[in-house]
């Protein structure tokens, strides 16, 4: 049974239940204490993840190795940062309910189950635990029509994706006779040729996961949901869940279906090309900065998928680094969006950033760093993320991917630079003073983005170990 292996998940689940009791029973408002408690539980889970031994538990349904450790730390970091970003906003918008940190906690638990999944059922249940929490927090501002619409839209399309996933999983089970990834891998290697039904099942599963990471052509929900959901919720959507879904995609592609690389490669190459091109072109005309970030995140997923699509160890290492860098840069950029507030009203237009270079030079500088990093300007972190992915594509001989990647990077630099131009060269009024929690997040992610080039070694080593554990 080996149930002690799941200690991080267990601690997080028990902390969630305790926080639920602490929120419901007292008559007073305990949301701040629960925010802090959930934050502490996430940190504790991260420490436990670092100390987690390797192995499988529950008859192979749960796996722990260097790959799951790397991804879980990223997921927990993203969730904890998302909570920090949201705290002040929720108070100002009158949304400071204790359920918010609780739902973030359960969604991170779902992500950890996803990352550790070594079984189709565990994969599905983790994904559902994550998705259900996300549907609710998308509609968390329930009195706002847009937020409710975002939640409903995400729910309907997400259920469709879950249905596709289940259908694909049933086809895979029908072929292999087992839902365990190791048994599926055995079955695939024991069969001559490529069974057609298995490929159809795999494509269904990939389509559902592509929906979760919002890769083209399953991206339609992204701009609307990102725009409608409360800004800190959007910040969370764009960070931790994407990392978890990418981890799952990588595990499924490289683990049980590692021998079918030629089959899933085509799907991923198309999704990668489509995402890069759409992310670069569709973001150009946007006036709402949340929509801009939505298209930008679609583009980034395109670059990240390139690493998986080339189907080499080097590519997966690039993908892991890309997701790590993307996570921190993205949370930082969203922290700026959350701080955009004038006379107590939240703002979402790109034009509302005008004059930030004079009225709040520190935040303008941080935003400049994040935008340049996303555009891939050296020596910021985003450049290295793209560098490793493009290198893998070039080494693998996938010139189309590399060339399209470079071209779309150049195009997307236009709208990132436009944000910087608006901040420094347009005139505008001052924003409200930013809260301390956002300043902390901005400083932390900003320093990471700027100084990544000075100490990439630990990240590279961790990613290398993760790839070795995954590919074996």
């Amino acid at each position, binding site marked *: 049974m080996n149930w002690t292996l*799941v200690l991080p998940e267990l601690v997080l689940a028990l902390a969630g239940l305790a926080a639920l009791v602490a929120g419901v029973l007292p008559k007073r408002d305990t949301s701040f204490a629960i925010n802090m408690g959930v934050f502490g539980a996430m940190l504790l889970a991260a420490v436990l993840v670092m100390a987690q031994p390797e192995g499988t538990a529950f008859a192979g349904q749960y796996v722990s190795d260097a790959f799951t450790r790397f991804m879980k730390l990223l997921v927990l970091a993203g969730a904890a940062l998302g909570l920090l970003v949201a705290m002040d906003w929720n108070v100002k918008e009158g949304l400071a309910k204790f359920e918010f940190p609780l739902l973030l906690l359960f969604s991170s638990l779902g992500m950890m189950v996803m990352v550790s999944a070594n079984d189709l059922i565990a994969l599905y*249940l*983790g994904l559902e635990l994550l998705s259900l929490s996300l549907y609710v927090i998308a509609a968390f501002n329930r009195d706002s029509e847009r937020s409710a619409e975002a939640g409903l839209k995400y729910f309907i399309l997400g259920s469709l994706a879950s249905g596709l996933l289940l259908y694909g999983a049933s086809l895979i089970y029908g072929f292999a006779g*087992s839902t365990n990834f190791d*048994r599926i891998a055995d079955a695939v290697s024991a*069969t001559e040729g490529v069974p057609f039904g*298995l490929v159809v099942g795999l494509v269904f599963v990939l389509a559902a996961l592509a929906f979760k990471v919002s890769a083209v052509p399953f991206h339609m929900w992204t701009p609307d949901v990102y725009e409608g959901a409360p800004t800190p919720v959007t910040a969370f959507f764009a960070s931790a869940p994407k990392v978890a879904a990418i981890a799952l995609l990588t595990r499924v592609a490289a683990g049980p279906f590692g021998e079918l690389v030629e089959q899933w490669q085509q799907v991923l190459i198309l999704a990668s090309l489509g995402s890069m091109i759409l992310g670069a072109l569709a973001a150009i005309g946007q006036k709402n900065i949340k929509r801009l970030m939505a298209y930008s995140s679609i583009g980034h997923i395109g670059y990240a998928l390139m690493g998986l699509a080339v189907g080499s160890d080097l590519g997966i290492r690039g993908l892991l680094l890309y997701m790590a860098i993307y996570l921190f840069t993205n949370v930082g950029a969203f922290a700026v969006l959350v701080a955009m507030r004038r006379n107590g009203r939240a703002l979402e237009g790109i034009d509302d950033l005008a004059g930030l270079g004079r009225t709040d030079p520190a935040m303008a500088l941080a935003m400049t760093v994040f935008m340049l990093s996303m555009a891939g300007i050296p020596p910021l972190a985003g450049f290295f993320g793209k560098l490793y992915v493009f290198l893998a594509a070039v080494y693998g001989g996938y010139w189309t991917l590399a060339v399209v990647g470079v071209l779309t990077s150049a195009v997307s630099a236009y709208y990132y630079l436009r944000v910087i131009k608006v901040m420094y060269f347009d005139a505008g009024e001052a924003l409200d003073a930013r809260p301390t929690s956002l300043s902390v997040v901005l400083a932390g992610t900003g320093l990471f983005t700027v100084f990544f080039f000075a100490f990439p070694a630990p990240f590279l080593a961790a990613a290398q170990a993760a790839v070795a554990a995954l590919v074996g």
Partner: protein
Amino acid sequence: MIAALAFYVFAAILIASAVMVVTSRNPVHSVLFLILAFFNAAALFLIAGAEFLAMILVIVYVGAVAVLFLFIVMMLDIDFSRMREGLQRYAPIGAVIGGILFLELLFVFGSWQFAPDAATLRLNATPGPEVTNTEALGQLIYTDYIYLFQVAGLILLVAMIGAIVLTLRDKPANSKRQDIGVQVARAEAVKLANPPSRAGLGQLGIIRRPLPEAPKPKAVGHDHHDHHGGGHH
């Protein structure tokens, strides 16, 4: 032979009632057909040897879920004809997509290929003749798949939290509620006094209001005018 015949009969009724669930005009009929579909599915489970699932399907789905459905359909005022308005417009494209998917599935299942050891790996309804369905399921759910069972429980918990967060509203601040402690502790409601023995109320300064005059019993011989006045004199 009889099992095969029973299978086709139940399967045919199942599919027919499933079609009727979607197409019948009256939503109450839809739910009733749904119940029929559940019963036939339970019969199919019985034929497959999964008697526990068959009974659970009847108890849970027919006994609880479908009845709840029925209540909801009867209580909510849903205009089903308006919901079906888009059907005509979207039917062709839906039919095209459905047709393509159906052809693909035919293609998939026509060339279906099993992994060599799929048959041995696949779960049986009962692991052996001496183990009952219930025992086998209990072993699977609470021992082999306890991890997944717990995660499923957390999903239900999140669903509950979500439903409460999105719909529960506290009553408005000016609504009146009973607060027994406050009501009893009201200063003007209770007066504590230490009366000397045999003292009347008047000596204590407590003035008793005269009791309101009891309405006179209606006399039989009252005229019409008085009848309308109702006790005012």
